[in-house]
């Protein structure tokens, strides 16, 4: 299997789908001539031309709306948000239009559209540029939400997203673009609603997605040295959610920790906890724990950013807690 970066995997997904289907196009700030703010669309303008790789002004509500209108009449837009932080100026388009048009038209208009871009904190970008907003969009029926942690998942999920007839919120890891990983050769898609066990283990179930999978893997490695085996379940899509995979894992381990980069209150971690305690009530040997960002806007200073974000140490501590260690 070839090894490629997460960034390149996304590029492959878009390029393959654009080669396959004339209706697919990419639109966003700096996606064309600049080759992408994070270089995800590198080379695509050259390959597909200005008609299909479209640079926009800084008008997210405008071009998200444009994508929605275009999707209503049969095109299949990929709308790049430079980062998900900027989606907030287009929140009305995503929540009041994209999520609702199919239902409020009585099913007449489907919306095959992908909104994609990086989410989460990068390094010291401060409060307005460091938000993991997946819990907000996961709240909204009518949207799908994919949030891959590896190059293979990034490619496979993005291809599925582009082919999906519904609006998909696709959140990439801003700090994962350089991550290398193997990708199956040839056609590779990952279905929505099917999670993946990123590390098997018998003692504790850790539910994590996007970058937090990697933080959890580090924690698991550290714990393995002490004889604790964590099972890391990556749901890969939050909407739909592979609840079964999570619950079955918890039924084996009897313990569950959710790790998320976003804020705690009303976060998706709470959702996982709700479902786990409901579906595996009698199997739980300890309350579900969550590890989240601290409940503050992200500060600029490097060491404080580390304090705010979930870390290996905090994951280890949570695992120890559900195991009643120390």
């Amino acid at each position, binding site marked *: 299997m070839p090894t490629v970066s997460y960034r390149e995997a996304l590029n492959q997904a878009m390029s393959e789908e654009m080669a396959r289907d004339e209706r697919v196009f990419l639109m966003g700030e700096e996606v064309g001539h600049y080759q992408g703010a994070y270089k995800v669309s590198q080379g695509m303008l050259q390959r597909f031309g200005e008609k299909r790789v479209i640079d926009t*002004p800084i008008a997210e509500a405008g071009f998200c*709306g*444009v994508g929605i209108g275009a999707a*209503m009449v049969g095109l299949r837009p990929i709308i790049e948000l430079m980062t998900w932080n900027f989606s907030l100026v287009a929140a009305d388009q995503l929540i009041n*239009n994209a999520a609702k048009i199919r*239902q409020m*038209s*009585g099913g007449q208009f489907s919306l095959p559209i992908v909104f994609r871009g990086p989410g989460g904190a990068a390094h010291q970008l401060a409060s307005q540029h460091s938000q993991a907003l997946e819990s907000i969009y996961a709240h909204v029926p009518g949207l*799908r939400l994919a949030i891959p942690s590896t190059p293979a998942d990034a490619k496979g999920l993005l291809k599925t997203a582009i082919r999906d007839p519904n609006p998909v919120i696709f959140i990439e890891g801003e700090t994962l673009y350089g991550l290398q990983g193997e990708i199956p050769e040839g056609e590779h898609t990952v279905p929505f609603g099917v999670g993946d066990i990123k590390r098997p283990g018998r003692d504790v179930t850790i539910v994590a997605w996007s970058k937090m999978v990697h933080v959890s893997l580090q924690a698991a490695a550290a714990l393995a040295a002490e004889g604790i085996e964590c099972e890391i379940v990556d749901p890969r899509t939050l909407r739909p959610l592979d609840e079964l995979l999570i619950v079955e894992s918890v039924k084996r381990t009897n313990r569950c920790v959710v790790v998320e980069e976003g804020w705690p209150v009303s976060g998706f971690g709470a959702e996982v906890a709700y479902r786990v305690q409901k579906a595996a009530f009698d199997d739980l040997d300890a309350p579900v724990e969550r590890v989240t960002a601290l409940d503050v806007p992200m500060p600029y200073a490097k060491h404080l950013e580390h304090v705010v974000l979930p870390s290996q140490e905090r994951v280890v501590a949570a695992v120890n807690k559900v195991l009643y260690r120390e």
Partner: protein
Amino acid sequence: MRRLEREARESPPPAERARLAELYRQMLCIRRMEEAAAKAYAQGKIGGFLHLYIGQEAVAVGAIAALSPDDYVVATYREHGHAYAKGTPARAIMAELYGRSSGISKGLGGSMHLFDAAHNFLGGYGIVGGHVPLASGVAFASKYRGDGRVTLCFFGDGSASQGAFHEGLCLAALWHLPIVFICENNQYSMGTPLYRSLSIEDVSQKALAYGMARDRFDGEDVLRVRERVGEALRRAREDHVPTLIEIKTYRFRGHSMSDPGQYRTKEEIEEWKKRDPVPFARQTLLEHMGMPEAELAALEEACKKEIEEAVQFAEQSPPATEEDMLSSTYEP
């Protein structure tokens, strides 16, 4: 208030008379349809918000008459007239207002969210200005495909202060999209008169910010609307030049059924009623185009029937279904 004189017309060719008769018919049917809806609302048979278009009919009917069926229309929550003019049957509209599964949006959308894919009516939207970029996107698709279609986007004067309006027009102008934006300036956004919501009196001036073509005229004469919108459509279709058109009009009713409309004087409303587009068209037909009273009466009777039948259809239709609701959130 500036009064408009009826433009004198030479004795017109019969085709022109037939065309105006059809537009008159549409306006009248819309009027009757909404009167029936208001009645049903008062009886508790229709719920939610109901925004009547009464008084503004010449705008939708005239503008949409200039379209070909392949062209697209995108509108607001005040869109019964636009849907009808674009081809949605009155019965499908009425059934929607009644929340029936035979409604054009299967009873899931209601008054504010009529959609009709078969007639390229891309919906009524409830967030002021939120549909403007979406309309630009529909036009974007036409340009992308080179299908020669044009999109007409309707909105009220209140939209002009929304960010989405600005962004939608920015992109349409930058990308030379085949679209015509029609601001139906009925001079009020809910209870707020234009002078308290906009720093300019001439809404079409907004076009200057985008280097966009613009036009501005009064909207009681459906033929004038058709003609002037037709020019903009030609610019959009042939030259890929979008236009912002401001059409002055007036709603005779409150903002919605729940609005007593106390912010306008009786005199103001009466003054505007003198320019009611429906009798205006009738009078033109009768006095300037020589349409016999009997023919007009027959046409009016047909409208009445059509709407009665629509109400009956709505009342007898089965309610919206849970199955449609559940299956329409996502496409499987």
